[in-house]
């Protein structure tokens, strides 16, 4: 296990390094001239050239890459071109707020999704199962951006129950206000994912329950509760674990939309700001952070997968 972990960690570092090259490459394909963006539309060509030289934009790409990457290694994320302020504190603050949103949502998705899925699977065909299945179909289908608009329309504009903005600082009015502002964004983020996870858990649970070894266990007279907990659950949760890791990515994507609409000052908003304003250092730093978080989530999923499935022996071939 330790060897496997070490190998996977090395792989993650490798992926991140490759990612830094990929992102750097894509970002430098972005159309638009950075110097113009900073100096504004009516900058004189001489001023544009002077700034380009100052920022090192005329150096060959590998040189620029190395300057950026070596800074990255020493923890220097550079300075936002558009805002003229250091990037690190911007990213750290925004990431903290996004992490809160993501953590609450993911915890809800995992707990509610798995619980609902198992309940449906073990109560197949009952009214509850049918209602849940129907709800799953519906919630998987509602796009976040449409859902945002609908919940704002209903809960904020028509009913006036909840604030339409997604953020208020904790220091500014206490936990209750802070939590009230989080309800709509979290609701929007999790509805589709809970449906996704519970549906997957249900179908893999049903499959497992009908597989031979469960039938065999039942035939041997193992109590149903034990069959579920000891035999069915670990196998049934395998696809769920993979999907949860994928869902971290969907969640991060959803956060981009949700943060924009609910005025939540997180990493997603910062990334959109960076793309819109062509703030290359900010965009690079933001993408690297997102990628790192996501790679780690996938690593955790892989480790869990390996830990739960006894047949996969940490990367050795199953011959």
């Amino acid at each position, binding site marked *: 296990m330790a060897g496997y972990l070490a190998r996977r960690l090395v792989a993650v570092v490798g992926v991140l390094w490759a990612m830094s090259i990929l992102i750097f490459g894509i970002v430098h394909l972005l159309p638009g001239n950075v110097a113009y963006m900073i100096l504004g539309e009516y900058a004189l060509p001489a001023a544009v050239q002077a700034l380009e030289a100052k920022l090192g934009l005329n150096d060959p790409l590998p040189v620029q890459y190395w300057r950026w990457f070596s800074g990255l290694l020493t923890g220097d994320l550079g300075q936002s071109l558009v805002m003229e302020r250091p990037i690190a504190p911007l990213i750290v603050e925004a990431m903290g707020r996004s992490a809160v949103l993501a953590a609450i949502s993911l915890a809800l998705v995992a707990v509610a999704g798995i619980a609902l899925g198992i309940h449906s699977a073990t109560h197949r065909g009952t009214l509850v199962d049918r209602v849940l299945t129907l709800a799953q179909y519906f919630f998987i289908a509602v796009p976040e951006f449409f859902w945002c608009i609908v919940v704002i329309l209903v809960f904020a504009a028509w009913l006036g129950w909840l604030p339409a903005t997604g953020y208020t600082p904790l220091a500014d009015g206490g936990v209750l206000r802070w939590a009230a502002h989080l309800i709509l964004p979290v609701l929007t983020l999790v509805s589709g994912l809970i449906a996704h996870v519970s549906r997957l858990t249900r*179908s893999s649970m049903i499959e497992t329950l009908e597989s031979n070894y469960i039938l065999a266990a039942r035939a041997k007279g193992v109590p149903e509760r034990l069959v579920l907990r000891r035999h069915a659950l670990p196998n049934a949760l395998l696809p769920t674990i993979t999907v949860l890791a994928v869902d971290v990515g969907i969640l991060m994507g959803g956060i981009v939309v949700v943060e924009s609409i609910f005025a939540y000052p997180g990493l997603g908003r910062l990334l959109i700001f960076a*793309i819109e304003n062509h703030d290359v250092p900010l965009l690079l730093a933001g993408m690297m952070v997102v990628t790192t978080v996501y790679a780690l989530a996938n690593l955790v999923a892989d480790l869990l997968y390996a830990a739960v499935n006894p047949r996969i022996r940490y990367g050795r071939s199953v011959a």
Partner: protein
Amino acid sequence: MTVAAERAARPPLPSTLIMGAVVVALIVAAAIIGPWLSSYDPTVFAVRERLRPPSAAHWFGTDEFGRDVLARVLEGARYSLGIGLGATTISLVLGVPLGLLAAFRRDWMGEAIMRGVDLLISIPPILLGMLILAVTEPSLWKTVVAVGIVYVPIMTRIARSVALGLLAEDFVQAARARGEGAFYILAREILPNAWPPIIVETALRITFAILLGSALSFLGLGLQPPASEWGLLIAESRPFIEQAPWIGLAPGICLCILLVSVNLVGEGLRELLDPRLRGRGHG
């Protein structure tokens, strides 16, 4: 269980499949012949008819330019269907073979595939789509390709994880013990048994592809106005959402109906195809 008994036990088509297929068929039909059904041109303005609520003349009301919302939604169905099917086909055709290969060849090749997957999968789909579309001028086919590429790694991963599970199964190990070749095992043992989960996933993937395509349009990176792609229609309706909610609700609800019915088709197919659901174990 004998073959005859199995035939006799074959259940009728699942109701989910029938319901889903009927609705999808209706939407496809509406997308194809809809523009002839509607007496309104989806692009023509009518200043005096602006922001009218749904009525007998305009079933879904009119938008801020007095355009008929129904006519625009009908036209938009083509885009959403096209993006969903096109992109999923791309990810399926590229992703599944890669995934099977990666599961089977657990040497440098499998490693290379999975590291490539890790690389692409490390960018959340919407951000990858945004990056791809941000560096090029947006257009319909670029949206399709971008969404397709975004989902290749996920398809690969799912196919691999399904195949990995199957590789550990006794019947595959038995085939290996018989000395069967890689292609035989992949094509004859793994693929037929891998289909059901892949089909379920594909149905989900179509939904996600339609979703991502419309989300990108919503963010301004996909189709361009006056095109009536549903995500774009919803985005454009935002300033009027309280005054004239029908402008955004109509395409939004249609999008949801399309996605639900595509999902139903997937679920129905799964019920139909998955041998385990018919009570047959494998091996």
